[in-house]
């Protein structure tokens, strides 16, 4: 069993006068059942063309509440106004502007639960990772 740890810290010196903000949270990434550490991951970089809607992560096995974690970062540096819009299950959740990142658990719970990204304002460069409970390689073509 592998141990993969995710830690987030969120800080600000000037958000609330006289009271610096310091949030810290950490968790070990566990497979479905929360007793065994995740060992499977897929990482990469991609360019998303303007107005091109891409499937970043396909829906997973049809397992309710399957355990996955998603990391996506918009590493575009050309222009701070560039962003990608991300959707889950065809629902727009948010925008990752240049430099923004996200880390979320992901259900992949049915055949329509893919995560899609669409670039606005030019070509966006993204970095991504998915941590998985299980994975089966596609069958070879006969």
């Amino acid at each position, binding site marked *: 069993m592998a141990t993969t740890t995710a830690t987030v810290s969120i800080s600000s010196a000037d*958000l609330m006068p006289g009271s610096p903000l310091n949030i810290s949270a950490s968790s070990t990434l566990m497979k479905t059942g929360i007793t065994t550490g995740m060992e499977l991951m897929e990482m990469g970089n991609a360019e998303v063309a303007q107005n091109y809607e891409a499937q970043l992560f396909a829906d997973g096995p049809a397992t309710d509440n399957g355990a996955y974690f998603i990391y996506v970062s918009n590493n575009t540096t050309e222009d701070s106004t560039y962003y990608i819009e991300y959707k889950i299950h065809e*629902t727009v959740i*948010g*925008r990752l502007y240049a430099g923004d990142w996200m*880390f979320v658990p992901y259900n992949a719970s049915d055949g329509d*639960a893919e995560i899609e990204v669409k670039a606005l304002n030019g070509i966006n460069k993204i*970095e991504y990772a998915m941590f998985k409970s299980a994975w089966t390689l596609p069958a070879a073509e006969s």
Partner: protein
Amino acid sequence: MATLIPTLTLSSTDATTDLLNFSVTDSLNITQKVIAPSRVTTSTGDLTLFASGSYSRSYVYLKNMDDTIAMDVDFGSTASFNIRPGEFAFFPWHASQNIVVAADSGTPVLEYAIFEA
């Protein structure tokens, strides 16, 4: 205007033969509403944590504080995360759908914060 610095670190010494150890950070301008870390007791009924009409582009932090019970975080009628015990999420939210929380069972506590850009 205030500056928010979120940082994510992912690490493992044994997930692969190559060490996993990377960190990403950002610098966000926060100009609107803020809810600093707060906690709410959830139940199996839907709880609207953040109403879309009350926010614009925002950044959301969520953590399930319970040791055993997971909870669903829904956006509209189909998109959702399932945050298991001890897990967290940090993501940008464009406020096009309400964020609604419901526990899988019992009354687990959710820690949350929101920062409106």
